[in-house]
């Protein structure tokens, strides 16, 4: 790694003291004079129409101040949602909201609402909607073909296969692509595995629900909501509320987790804002844990048929995928397409065909969840590759290495007949290091060891996912007091990238971090146009933009010094909070002195004159900051070289109790290729936190729904089971390692690391469970529950469900 002073070093982030003393304010921690509380009336049925609604008794109750119904919202264009509806499409969908002087009164008013529902047909399993004569989740169709809602039924397939857990082939789908010639690929394969596989839907469940509080002052709406992004929440939230973005003040310095479910906050946050406008008072809408389970978003499950062709050396030559995604009732989420892209990247088949579609169901809305599609790809396909290694008598890490991409490998859905390329890929280097550091041979030696009824299993899996964007803006102010104020529109959901990426500007200025002040999380504080805080976009995107702003600031400092002392700008250097003449440090100005001079000079120095290529939001913010010092706004115009992707390789060791089916995780190690590490402590948190989130995918986090009534059975933590601290290995610290290969298309070599770790955790654990059972077992399904293990071990037991069953 290059010799950096700040990058790659641990440091104390500017938010942690507030967090650890309880001073950090999340959405529900704000109070406003005369604040009302809102409660929601939510649908008790999976699909219904409001037949009769009488709110008069509720409105007549003392203390009730305002009601908001779906009729008052602009109609959303199908298949989008409005936030309130008269035709609920899933249990728990909000129908109306009431604001009252306190929350109990609001809840009582909700009970006083007279409402009558006409139940409508519902469907929970995409397969049931594809059956001829099967119900549609929506009255206007069961899928999206291009941009149109339509209905597709699979008339020609053999439905008896579905009943036996076999994903049928030949049904109509909405999306299809192919590279090479998949049939020719299978013809040259030495081993073909053709499997029906399933990865279950699961909720995001951030610990902070999507609570929001809003009020109006002088025509502006002040919104305290839970959101991952800041700059990229402003526009959408203003649209939802129906105001100009300049009339919205968004305050969201802390977000209690999102995992993709709060990338731009939530449409339901418009409810307190609109109620507040009606009531003329601030409104807090606290979202309960159960409501969060209903409308807090979820990862779509995928039912698939996966046919993989291998050469005898383990090389994947052909992949043929047919995928049906459980789309929930709204939107266009395309996990199945990213699932295919990631399979193409991880396994690099010369021939690949993908057929897929999303099918609407009356289950909670889906959204991007940490590596959307990528996690499902690993959960469904890593066990297939693992099984191939066994059948071809290959080392299970070798087969991953053999297929892993290298350099600027091509992958994914072709555009104009050509596949795109990854900006850099060093998973092979990561594997080579990990093989030694993690002692793969030693791990393998423990495979199959018995301790009473418990057997040790070892698993390894690779995952990949997007790791950055480009073209966003940097904005900083060097103030007369010498401080460098770095503004960022990146949100703060705990990855700390808002701060870690700000260090790029200080690195460029060669100045200690103590002289920096990060400004974030409040649009009234003038933030630049930024990447979404999601999809691991910020680490790459904002090291670029802050490096650009840092270099631009350096240039302006040199010019100011040249103006003061004479000579050319490049005879001056910048470092340690000063600009000084090379070889004559007596001719120097502090940042504070240079900032004062910048204010006198005006123009390009104090923000009065700004670059033309920056985003309008950045222009607005920089203009507001003009005159406060040396004001620098810069767009990231650095070269790009393909799609930015990171890789993780997870190594799991489990103990499976063959008597009870219980799985205990003994150890987890993760290797990664994520370019230059900006902040090792946070990096470790991402790779291990993501990995353990993957354990949830592999080991029991799921929905259970009553098929007769379409209602949730597992609505809370204790029943839908996100991993606890005892589910994670806890006898020793978990290890991690990095390839440490900088990305050539980032000035600091950085790539994001939020997404890729989840799949590695899931895949490694799934493979480890199979390994404990002797390999060659066909769970082909995640999560693996104890009863599935016992059924596998005791063939005389009946399976509780088949491989493709959803929400069981």
């Amino acid at each position, binding site marked *: 790694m290059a010799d950096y002073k700040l990058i790659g070093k641990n440091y104390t982030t500017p938010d942690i003291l507030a967090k650890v003393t309880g001073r950090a304010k*999340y959405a*529900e921690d704000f109070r406003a004079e005369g604040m009302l509380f809102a409660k929601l009336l939510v649908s008790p049925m999976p699909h219904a129409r409001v037949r009769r609604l009488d709110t008069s008794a509720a409105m007549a109750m003392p203390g009730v101040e305002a009601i908001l119904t779906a009729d008052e919202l602009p109609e959303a264009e199908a298949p989008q949602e409005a936030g309130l509806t008269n035709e609920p499409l899933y249990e728990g969908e909000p129908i109306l909201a009431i604001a009252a002087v*306190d929350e109990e009164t609001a*809840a009582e008013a909700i009970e006083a609402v007279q409402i009558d529902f006409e139940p409508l047909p519902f469907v929970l399993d995409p397969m049931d909607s594809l059956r001829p004569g099967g119900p549609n989740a929506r009255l206007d169709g069961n899928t999206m073909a291009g941009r149109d809602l339509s209905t597709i039924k699979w008339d020609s397939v053999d439905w008896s296969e579905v009943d036996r857990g076999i994903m049928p082939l030949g049904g109509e789908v909405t999306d299809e692509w192919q590279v090479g010639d998949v049939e020719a690929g299978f013809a040259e394969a030495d081993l073909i595995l053709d499997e029906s596989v399933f990865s279950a839907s699961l909720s995001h469940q951030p610990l902070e629900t999507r609570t929001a509080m809003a009020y109006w002052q002088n025509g502006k709406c002040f919104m305290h909501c839970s959101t991952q992004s800041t700059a990229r929440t402003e526009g959408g939230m203003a649209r939802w509320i129906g105001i100009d973005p300049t009339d919205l003040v968004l305050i969201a310095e802390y977000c209690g987790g999102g995992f993709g479910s709060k990338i731009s906050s939530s449409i339901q946050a418009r409810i307190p804002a609109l109620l507040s406008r009606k009531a003329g008072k601030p409104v807090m809408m606290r979202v309960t844990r159960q*409501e969060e389970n209903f409308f807090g978003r979820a990862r779509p499950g995928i039912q698939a048929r996966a046919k993989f062709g291998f050469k005898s050396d383990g090389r994947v030559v052909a992949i043929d995928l047919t995928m049906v995604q459980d789309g929930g009732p709204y939107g266009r989420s395309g996990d199945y397409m990213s699932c295919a892209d990631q399979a193409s990247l991880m396994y690099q088949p010369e021939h690949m065909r993908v057929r897929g579609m999303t099918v609407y169901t009356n289950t909670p809305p889906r959204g991007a969840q940490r590596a959307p599609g990528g996690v499902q790809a690993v959960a469904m396909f890593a066990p297939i590759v693992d099984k191939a290694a066994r059948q071809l008598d290959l080392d299970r890490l070798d087969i991953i290495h053999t297929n892993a991409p290298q350099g600027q490998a091509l992958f994914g859905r072709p555009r104009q007949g050509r596949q795109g390329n990854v900006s850099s890929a060093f998973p092979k280097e990561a594997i080579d290091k990990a093989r030694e550091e993690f002692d793969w041979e030693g791990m393998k030696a423990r495979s199959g060891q018995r301790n009473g009824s418990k057997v040790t299993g070892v698993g390894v899996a690779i995952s990949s996912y997007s790791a950055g964007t480009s073209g966003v803006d940097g904005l900083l102010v060097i103030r007369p007091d010498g401080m460098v104020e770095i503004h960022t529109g990146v949100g703060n959901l705990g990855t700390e990238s808002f701060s870690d990426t700000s260090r790029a500007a200080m690195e460029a200025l060669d100045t200690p971090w103590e002289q920096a002040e990060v400004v974030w999380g409040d649009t009234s504080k003038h933030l630049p146009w930024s990447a979404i805080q999601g999809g691991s976009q910020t680490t790459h995107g904002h090291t670029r933009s802050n490096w650009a702003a840092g270099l631009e600031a350096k240039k302006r400092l040199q010019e100011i010094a040249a103006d003061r002392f004479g000579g050319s700008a490049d005879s001056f250097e910048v470092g340690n909070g000063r600009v000084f003449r090379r070889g004559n440090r007596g001719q120097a100005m502090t940042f504070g002195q240079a900032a004062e001079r910048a204010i006198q000079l005006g123009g390009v120095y104090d923000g009065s004159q700004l670059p033309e290529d920056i985003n309008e939001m950045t222009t607005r913010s920089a203009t507001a900051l003009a005159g406060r010092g040396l004001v620098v706004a810069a767009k990231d115009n650095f070269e790009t070289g393909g799609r930015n992707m990171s890789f993780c390789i997870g190594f799991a060791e489990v103990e499976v109790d063959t008597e009870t089916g219980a799985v205990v995780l003994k150890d987890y190690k993760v290797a990664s290729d994520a370019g230059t590490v900006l902040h090792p402590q946070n990096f470790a*948190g991402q790779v291990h936190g993501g990995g353990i989130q993957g354990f949830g995918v592999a080991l029991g986090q799921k929905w259970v729904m009553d098929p007769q009534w379409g209602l949730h059975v597992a609505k809370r*933590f204790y029943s839908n089971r996100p991993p606890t601290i005892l589910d994670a290995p806890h006898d020793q610290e978990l290890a991690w390692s990095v390839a440490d290969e900088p990305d050539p298309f980032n000035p600091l070599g950085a790539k994001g690391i939020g997404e890729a770790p989840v799949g590695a955790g899931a895949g490694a654990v799934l493979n480890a469970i199979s390994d404990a059972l002797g390999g060659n077992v066909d769970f082909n399904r995640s999560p693996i529950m104890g009863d599935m293990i016992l059924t596998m071990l005791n063939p005389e037991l009946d399976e509780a469900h088949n491989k493709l069953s959803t929400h069981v």
Partner: protein
Amino acid sequence: MGDVEHTQVQTTTEQQGVTRRGFIKGVIATGASVSASNYVLRNGHGVALAQAPGAVERLVTLNVNGQQRRVDVMPQETLAMTLRYKLGLTGTKIGCDRAECGACTVLVDGVPQYSCSTLSHQVRGREVQTIEGLEGADGTLHPVQQAVVDLQGFQCAFCMPGFVMNMVALTNENPDATRGECAHHLAGNICRCIDYNKILNVAEKACEYTRNGMRS
């Protein structure tokens, strides 16, 4: 904590004339259309249910972070709500309101308790400590807080106040805890960023600081 403590809590509740059924009635909104659990938040406007039996606030004195705080509380009001909405102590978080996630954990007489499932009336005469009460007057951090800062512990940190309070109890009770013992002690707290590895590093570091005599 454990069975003994639990029994004490029940006794206290009964002494104050709050029945279990009354409590449940107070906190759970009924009716088919309201599926969500509701928080008690009668804020003294004297409307609606103020006439209902037992639904009156009573002025009590609570010892919170070493201060005697006089506050009006409803019989069915939870400690989490009193702390957050009446005493301005929003550091204590509510993640589930049903004793599942532990974000609301505070210390009552040094014992970690879910404040979402503890009645404010139950803690009269007892010492309540929240995350706001850990830092010294001179800004010195508690060893647990210092460990968090030193190791960049937690991510979104919504779970952090609960974990930190539980770790304070851990360092008081058993600063020699092994990593596995730390995990068992903290098993009542959920982190959804699932940074459990780093959380256990923090717990071990906090124990180490405590063993080395750092002020707490």
